[in-house]
């Protein structure tokens, strides 16, 4: 009679003194490369703009990793890991903004719940928080514009992006060629990367 012995891979015990952070787990599992880490650092830094002061870019990044690893957010097939994590950070940012503005609806809402006594409870929205949020956002827009202060084409592109215009619409409005537009976007990318990499140093 033939018998086969299969050696099962044995996973060593986790060091008791070491607590893994979600980002470390992602790195250990080869979910992302070290270059991706830098890419994600720049993206997290970008999305942390306009967030409440108690929420840092690193919190945003770790939370994105946590949601990906725990599985509360599922990565669709074919979507690169960095794009997926960036998407999580984007929605985390929106979540924080909504919370700052006072609740999920952020407009004055009346809860309709016939099962509870709280059916008449009104969730009132603080109009002052909107104003504060708008001021914060304005400040951040100015900070981003400051990054491109010496590049008028980049500034015009930024203005177009803020208005929700497409690349073709921006090019038409600015009367620039696709090559000029693309090289301006490349300069912008480089500036954003530089900004992303320096954070933590200042």
């Amino acid at each position, binding site marked *: 009679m033939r018998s086969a012995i299969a*050696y099962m891979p*044995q996973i*060593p*015990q*986790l*060091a*008791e003194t*070491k607590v*893994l*952070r979600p*980002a*470390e787990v992602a*790195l*250990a599992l080869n979910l992302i490369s*070290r*270059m991706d*880490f*830098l*890419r994600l*650092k*720049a*993206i997290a830094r*970008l*999305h942390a*703009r*306009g967030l409440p002061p108690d929420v840092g870019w*690193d919190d945003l*990044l*770790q939370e994105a990793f946590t949601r990906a690893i725990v599985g509360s957010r599922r990565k669709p097939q074919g979507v690169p890991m*960095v*794009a997926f994590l*960036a998407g999580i950070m*984007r929605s985390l*940012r*929106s979540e924080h*903004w909504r919370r700052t503005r006072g609740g999920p609806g952020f407009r004055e809402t009346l809860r309709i719940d016939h099962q509870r006594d709280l059916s008449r409870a009104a969730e009132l929205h603080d109009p002052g928080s909107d104003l504060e*949020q*708008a*001021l914060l*956002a*304005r400040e951040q*827009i100015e900070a*981003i514009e400051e990054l491109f202060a010496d590049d008028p084409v980049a500034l015009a592109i*930024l203005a177009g*992006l*803020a*208005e*929700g215009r497409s690349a073709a619409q921006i090019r038409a409005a600015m009367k620039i060629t696709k090559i000029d537009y693309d090289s301006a*976007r490349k300069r*912008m*990318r*480089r500036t*954003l*990367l*530089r900004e*992303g*990499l320096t*954070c*933590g*140093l200042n």
Partner: protein
Amino acid sequence: MRTKLTPATSTAALGRMLDQLDRELIEASDEDILEAARDLGMNPLMKGSAAFIGLRVPAMAQFADFFDSDALRSVLSMRSAQQSLAPEAERQRKARRLKSEKSIERKDSADK
């Protein structure tokens, strides 16, 4: 006529701006990152590069950073023992195969 109404608040404008700019970073190649780092006098390929400052990860993560060193050592020694046994097991398996082939040949010739 415009078909879409867009809120003109600065919050919405910032949101749109960030959503577009993050795409730039997602699409940035490794070479773009290295060039940006070079502009700042950094070398992300170097161990302990300043580019990783602020990121809560070890400069060069290794298996031993995450797992208990004693446990790791015992697993590695077990693995090496298995590997040293593997050629011997393979030799025995080959010998068994040869033996069975020979017996089949002998049986065939006896039939004839």
